[in-house]
Structure formats: C-alpha cells, structure tokens
C-alpha cells in the first residue's frame, strides 16, 4: 500500500479528557479503518506521556510499527491532534508536519467557534473536513 502523496491516512482530534472529538480518514485508509483508528488510539498514551515533558506543541513522531507511523501535536489547552501515516512514506519533514498541524489547529478553532457546537461533543465541521482533504491530497 504505497501511495504517491505524503502517506497520511488518518487524522484524529482528541480532547483533554481523551474524548474523541473528530476524526478523518483518507481514501487509502478506507479498507483498514479499524486498524488505523486503533493505532491512533493506542498512541494516545505515548502522547500523554510526551506532552507532560514537552517544550513545544509539536511532539514529532510518537509511535511506529511495521505498518504505520504516528505524529502528534498538543495544544496548550490540552487538545491532542494525531496524524497516522504509512510507515513507508518518506516525504514528511518536521517543518511540513508543523505546518500541517498548525493548519489543523486553525481549522479546529474555527470549528469550535460555531455557536451551536457544545464543548466536549463530537464535532461536525466543514472547515475540518476541508482541511483534512487538503492534507490527504498533498
């Protein structure tokens, strides 16, 4: 399963109390949805551990196995952004990842600014879906 892009498969946004707020999957991941989501979920423990010691929001690669790699970003408010990529993809530098997470954080801020959104509930948002689509297409 080698795809030409950056290999991003899944993006998930998890709240401070580990409530799943939003997740998006690329088309490539449609056959392995459970596997990828499980991987993202499993890496949350490591994200928590790293976040306590972190000096910046971007945590870098937090976890990997023979199929997937996982990158994470934690906002100062404790919201976790997790990006799962194919382990074979090479084309992701830290600066690119920072830009991607910044974009996601931006979209997340816009999404929760919706006055009809109840804080802590799963998010439905056009902003986030669009942002994710762009990231997957890169």
């Amino acid at each position: 399963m080698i795809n030409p892009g950056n290999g991003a498969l899944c993006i998930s946004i998890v709240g401070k109390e580990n409530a799943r707020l939003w997740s998006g999957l690329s088309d490539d991941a449609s056959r392995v949805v459970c596997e990828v989501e499980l991987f993202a979920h499993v890496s949350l423990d490591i994200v928590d551990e790293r976040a306590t010691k972190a000096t910046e929001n971007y945590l870098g690669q937090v976890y990997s196995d023979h199929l997937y790699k996982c990158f994470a970003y934690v906002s100062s408010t404790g919201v976790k952004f997790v990006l799962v990529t194919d382990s074979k993809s090479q084309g992701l530098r830290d600066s690119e990842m920072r830009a991607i997470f910044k974009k996601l954080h931006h979209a997340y801020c816009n999404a929760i600014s919706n006055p009809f959104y109840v804080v802590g509930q799963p998010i439905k948002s056009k902003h986030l879906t669009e942002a994710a689509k762009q990231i997957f297409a890169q």
Partner: protein
Amino acid sequence: MSLPFDLLHMEMVRYGKEKEAVARADYPKEVLEGLDKATSSLVYKALASRNAETNLESIGLRTGFLLAERLCRDLPRISTELEIMKFICKEFWISVFGKQVDNLRTNHQGVYVVQDNRFPCLTSFSDGTQYVKDAAIYLCFPCGVVRGALQALGIQALVTPTTDQLPSVKFHIHIKTKLT
C-alpha cells in the same frame, strides 16, 4: 468613547436582566408566598441558575474558553500555572480588554489578584463610588471570560470581582484544582 463591544455588552446586560424578569414571573408563587424575607431570599438563591448574573457568566465562560484556544494557538507552549497567569494578564487581557493589567499579585498558594485601574466595561459609568452597586452586573461577563480561559488552559478557578471605586476593578482568582 465606546467600543462596539461595549455597546454589545450593554445590550447583553439589558437582555440578561429582561430574561431574569421573565424567569421570575415563572417562579413557583405558591412556594414563595407567605415566606419571611430571609427564607424567600434563600429560595431565590436556589433559583439562581436562572438569574442574569449566572446567565452572563456562562456566556462569558464559553467565550473565554474559545478565545483562549484561539490565542494560544500562535504562542509557544504554556504549561505552568505562572505561565498561564502571565498569558492571561498579557496576551489575553490585551486582546479581550484592549490593555494590559495594571497589577498582578499572588500569595503563591493559589490566590491571584489581578488589578485593572481602568476596566473597559466600566468606562461608561462616572468615576467614583456612587454607582459601584449598579456596576456589579457589568462584571459578570468579564469574570466568566477569565474563568473560561483558565478552564481551557487546565485550571479550575473561582473568579470574583471587587470594586471600591470605578473604573478600577480587582479580580480575585482562587485556584481550586489544577487539571493535568
């Protein structure tokens, strides 16, 4: 001089008061009738979730929560309690109230006092002690904003405003628990 926000805030307060008046009409009269003053004030306190102050505070809470998320997005990571308080007093205060706070004091045991000598929500009142009581409700929304921002950054706190002389306000922030 009034900022657009001040005008909106005045209307919010007015709306809050109107809403409270409507809610009061719904209060169970059979319960309130024939009670002496002390007991009925207690009953009113029990029904406080519908009063104007609580309402404005909860609007502020949501606003502060979102603003904190939005503002700390472009800043380096904020983690310790002191860093959070500095963020509130500098970046947050500037973008919400248009100026830095004038004084921040702490007893290092979870109590912070933030002093603002010219608080923008109160500039439409004439200075002095005459309208201190009337001004109280104009501080509910700002209190909620501060509490919401602290909550977003992981601190549960109790925020109470005190004012002796307009337009200067002291916000007492009692930190209850730090969520980690």
